[in-house]
């Protein structure tokens, strides 16, 4: 699953952008140093192949539904981790731009979930270690399936964590995790089987391609320490900057407006409704301990603050509707002037 712009906060998006940019710069330098220019066109064309392969569906046994290949692990096996990461990142860029799949700010998260995990964890640590020097068919299939499962489990864990840390969706961390991991276990197995089938076909038809891929030096070490450092610094800077922007300014304004309008009494019916809602929430909350931080803050704030929020809701509705119409009118006028 692709992480979407609509579900992330600027701090999470920005931190992963920084980490991804550093990874891409590092991988580009490695590809450049190790392989001269030979691999660059190959990478691009194989990236385009991923799109072509996704046009071909297959029937998933026992379910009757159909799926298509993801391709992250396939790229890592064929091109080695560095080139594979660059190719996966470019596939994701095209998807983000042409299909709005994921999104531009979420691009960093997606490269991490779908690129770094398969290329730098599943491929070197699982696939390479299991397959050995002289791969046999059964061993190759096993290694591929396991690597695909590990890669997808980590990727889905990434999506869940990024969503929870961003705090836009209210889905509790553990519930989301319990939904996502089993689904991605199944997806991982299917992806692994499909990748193994393609790989063994290539191995039979053009063994030299696979031989070259196998001779890559074992385990591409990413400079983990500097990556983590970049990540932390970026998180602090971006997180700090945005939380100031997000909380300080508009709240101060709203507060002053509320003070000016002086609407501070709490409606009677509202407090009753709130009690009912709270008890409902109590019943509905399966996982009370994982209440979201913002929900906790909202629950803890004072009655006047809540009343103020309610009083501003009407003007928000009216003004929002009016603005919508205004935006539309500006569009129409611009269009008319064009003609």
């Amino acid at each position, binding site marked *: 699953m692709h992480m979407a712009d609509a579900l992330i906060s600027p701090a999470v998006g920005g931190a992963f952008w920084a980490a991804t940019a550093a990874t891409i710069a590092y991988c580009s330098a490695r590809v450049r140093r190790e392989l001269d220019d030979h691999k660059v066109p190959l990478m691009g*064309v194989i990236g385009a192949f991923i799109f072509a392969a996704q*046009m071909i569906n297959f029937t998933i046994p026992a379910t009757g539904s159909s799926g298509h290949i993801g391709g992250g692990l396939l790229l890592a096996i064929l091109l080695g981790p560095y080139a594979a990461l660059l190719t996966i990142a470019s596939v994701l860029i095209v998807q983000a731009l042409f299909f*709005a799949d994921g999104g531009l700010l979420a691009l960093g998260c997606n490269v991490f979930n779908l690129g770094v995990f398969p290329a730098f964890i599943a491929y070197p640590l699982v696939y390479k270690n299991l397959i050995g020097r002289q791969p046999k068919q059964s061993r190759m299939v096993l290694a591929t399936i396991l690597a695909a499962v590990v890669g997808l489990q980590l990727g889905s864990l990434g999506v869940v964590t990024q969503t929870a840390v961003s705090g836009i969706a209210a889905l509790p961390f553990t519930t989301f995790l319990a939904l996502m991991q089993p689904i991605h276990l199944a997806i991982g197995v299917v992806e692994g089987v499909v990748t193994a089938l393609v790989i063994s076909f290539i191995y039979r038809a053009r063994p030299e391609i696979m031989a070259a891929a196998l001779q890559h030096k074992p385990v591409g070490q990413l400079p983990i320490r500097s990556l983590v450092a970049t990540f932390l610094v970026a998180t602090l800077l971006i997180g700090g900057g945005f939380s100031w922007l997000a909380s300080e300014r508009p709240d101060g304004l709203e507060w002053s407006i509320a003070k000016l309008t002086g609407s501070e009494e709490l409606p009677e019916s509202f407090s009753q409704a709130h009690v009912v809602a709270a008890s409902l929430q109590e019943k509905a909350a399966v996982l009370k301990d994982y209440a979201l931080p913002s929900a906790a803050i909202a629950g803890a704030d004072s009655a006047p603050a809540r009343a103020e929020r309610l009083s501003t809701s009407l*003007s*928000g509705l009216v003004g929002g509707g009016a603005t919508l119409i205004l935006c539309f009118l500006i569009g129409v006028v611009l269009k008319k002037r064009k003609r």
Partner: protein
Amino acid sequence: MLAIDGTLLDFKQLDLLAMRQTAIHRLDPRAKIITTLSFIVCVVSFNRYEISAMIPFLLYPAVLLTVGELPFGYILRKIIIVIPFALVVGIFNPVFDREVLMQIGSLDVWGGWLSCLSILLRALLTASAAILLVAVTGFPAICEALEQMGMPQVFAVQLLFLYRYIFVLTDEGVRTARARELRTFGKRGLGLRQFGSLVGNLLLRTWERAERIYMAMLARGFAGQVHTRQRGHFGRNEVMFVAGWISLFVLLRCYNVPQLFGRLLTGTLP
């Protein structure tokens, strides 16, 4: 079968839109990238219950659509396709977040519904920003701009290759899929084994094609760089475009304009 061809056609059409010549299309790609990213960051930085303050941000996609002379229905269709992905997660908000944050008449509105609606609006705004960026800029121009802004050259060249061959290879993929579908009855032949050899074959053909391409390029003097025709110029128009939009975004981000507007209309403004 029609569905696959449709996807491909859709893809090509978006690419063709970038060839128009309007004031927006003529701007330097860097200006449009910077503006789009600031737009997305501003939209995403709103708190989770915010709805009204986000609405004026619709102005940016609306202006790009009209000034860029883009087909409204087509762009809208492309955006609507992706919204369900965000909504799959957002739809759980009303289940888990039931604090009453708003009242319309006697109707209580849970925070979950507000944040769900907020996610919907976010998805609409961010998706339209991404698609409109391609529609008014074009992919090669975006690559070039990113390279000028510091993206590694290896990555940029490889991205351009991917883009060039995407149309050739997806055509091939679609033809292969169609040929297989015409030869199958029911579900026979659509299974994993056939898929393996089909995609394996496609991969081999692609690999050999890539080798031929590389040889041909070497013969024509390829030295690791792709030269493009247009070199953008970041002039006064670009500065005005970027500065104008960003200051508007910051203004709209800091002041809830619809709220103030609403107060004016309902007469609660002092």
